[in-house]
């Protein structure tokens, strides 16, 4: 067991680029600060190359703190991809809202480091640190629009509840440590497998950890912060919260439950079953009543966490594979939807009400068609990634004979179709409104939207490639 720097090279590169950007801020002329975004992008591409070069490496690294496996590499690529898309979308956003570039991109890079660490951590200390690196950067990013009360409020709520929930997570970790005598994943799993009857502290630890992760992944009943924080945060950060941050919490939860505590599956399956039902129901029903598109997408992201939970509750190989597949599909469609929302909203984040989408269809065909694709995919209509993902998740639950869960999930997603289609109907059949300044979609945003559309449709029509990759990735 040694340090093996190559295993953490992507994280090192990202951190160095984050620091580099902070150093560059005072030396870059005001007018050229947006170039810092491309520095961040370059760092992410370098890290991506590193991860790709490592694909196939297995074993423990960094003194046993980090797993090197396909699962981790798969997730790392996904996270880097999502963050890179967010960088591309934010360059224009920051210019429009007159926000500082440098701090934004370096914080985003640090947040990405946290996500990568969570995906590969082999030790509860590392999981906790990854989570905190991600969260603390995101607290600041959520409150990035200093002059706006909504943004400050969003950051404050996220901070207070985030810190509160990390308290629970830590307390859970402490109990698991006390019960198993180690914080290393493999060691804990061994101890639990060897023991005949489990100490009560272990169950306490499990419960508290699920609460902690549940907060971060916005699972009901710990989702209350989500809509407010998503609404107040800058749009690119809302996308980051909905995709990167949530996916990282989910991946860490998958690792903890599947790799560390598979022996207790009966117990956590019961907890997650209830949480899955609640999450899907609350997410889909509350989304019906929303008038703000960011808030609607926030509830939609809660609902999608519920679908992911269905796969997690199934606790079988197909479940783990379909979680990975769904995370990819979810990243494509959600990032795409937020990119369009960002493009349609104009200075000061006006035009983010659902009414503002009325009659956009014929005036802005590119934005409307792409947004329709993303919403159709989120609704889970065939020929899109969202449909395939849901199919696999529900199939996994069927395999574990959780028929009621699947029935509820199908009903919930049927409710969901209504609010997604409402936006599309409004875009094409709504009455025309005062349109304000015309929308100009800058090239980077256009590129992101195009990539996401292609990805969403590709996953829906040819799911084989990614499903194969996901099945390779799941080794536990």
């Amino acid at each position, binding site marked *: 067991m040694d340090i093996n720097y190559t295993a953490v090279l992507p994280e090192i590169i990202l951190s160095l680029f984050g620091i580099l950007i902070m150093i560059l801020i005072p030396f870059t002329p005001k007018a050229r600060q947006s170039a810092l975004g491309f520095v961040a992008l370059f760092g992410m591409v370098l890290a991506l190359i590193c991860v790709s070069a490592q694909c196939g490496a297995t074993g423990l690294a960094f003194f046993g703190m980090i797993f090197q496996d396909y699962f981790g590499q798969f997730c790392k690529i996904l996270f880097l991809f999502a963050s890179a898309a967010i960088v591309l979308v934010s360059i224009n956003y920051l210019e429009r809202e007159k926000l500082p570039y440098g701090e934004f991109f370096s914080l985003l890079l640090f947040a990405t480091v946290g996500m990568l660490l969570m995906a590969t951590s082999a030790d509860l*200390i590392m999981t*906790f*640190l990854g989570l*905190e690196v991600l969260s*603390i950067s995101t*607290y*600041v990013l959520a*409150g990035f629009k*200093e002059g706006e*009360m*909504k943004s*400050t*409020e*969003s*950051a*404050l*709520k996220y*901070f*207070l509840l985030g*810190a*509160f929930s*990390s*308290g629970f997570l*830590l*307390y859970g*970790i*402490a*109990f698991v*440590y*006390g019960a198993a*005598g*180690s*914080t290393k994943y493999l060691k804990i799993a061994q101890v639990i497998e060897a023991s005949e009857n489990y100490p009560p502290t272990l169950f306490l630890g499990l419960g508290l950890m699920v609460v902690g992760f549940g907060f971060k992944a916005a699972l009901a009943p710990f989702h209350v912060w989500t*809509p*407010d924080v998503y*609404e*107040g945060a800058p749009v690119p950060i809302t996308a980051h919260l909905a995709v990167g941050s949530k996916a990282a919490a989910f991946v860490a939860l998958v690792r903890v439950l599947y790799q560390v505590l598979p022996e207790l599956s009966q117990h956590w399956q019961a907890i997650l079953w209830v949480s899955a039902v609640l999450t899907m129901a609350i997410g889909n029903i*509350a989304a019906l*009543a*929303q008038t703000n598109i960011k*808030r609607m997408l926030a509830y939609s992201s809660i609902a999608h966490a519920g679908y992911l939970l269905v796969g997690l509750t199934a606790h079988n190989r197909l479940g783990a594979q379909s979680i990975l597949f769904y995370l990819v599909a979810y990243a494509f469609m959600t990032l795409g939807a937020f990119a369009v929302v960002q493009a349609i909203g104009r200075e000061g984040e006006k035009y983010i009400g659902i009414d503002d989408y009325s009659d956009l269809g014929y005036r802005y065909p590119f934005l409307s068609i792409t947004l329709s694709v993303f919403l159709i995919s989120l609704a889970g209509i065939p020929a899109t990634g969202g449909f395939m993902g849901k199919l696999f998740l529900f199939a996994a639950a069927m395999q574990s004979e959780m028929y009621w869960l699947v029935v509820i999930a199908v009903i919930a997603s049927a409710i969901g179709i209504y609010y997604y289609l409402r936006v599309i109907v409004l875009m094409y059949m709504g009455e025309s409104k005062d349109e304000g300044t015309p929308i100009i979609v800058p090239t980077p945003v256009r590129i992101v939207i195009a990539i996401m559309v292609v990805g969403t449709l590709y996953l829906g029509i040819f799911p084989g490639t990614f499903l194969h990759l996901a099945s390779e990735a799941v080794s536990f």
Partner: protein
Amino acid sequence: MVPATHYLALAAILFAIGALGVIIRRNVITMFMCVELMLNAVNLTFITFSRFLNQVDGQIFVFFVMTVAAAEAAVGLALIVLLSRRTDTLDVDQANTMKW
């Protein structure tokens, strides 16, 4: 020697006080201090287990928790300053404009 359960019970009480405080109190600073109290209860738990398992792992964990708590305090207090500048109060209910 004092048995482990005593320490654990103390930590549990501290944690409960902290958690209740966050839920009941409306002053941001108080809420934040209650979160810190929760983290310290966790630290106490770690140290207890570490002592009774005869390992140092738990104590190392405590250092990490303390570091993270410090980083969190920096960000948190900055946000609280921002709130008090905007609303002239530390009442979290003042920062509740978004509702469904």
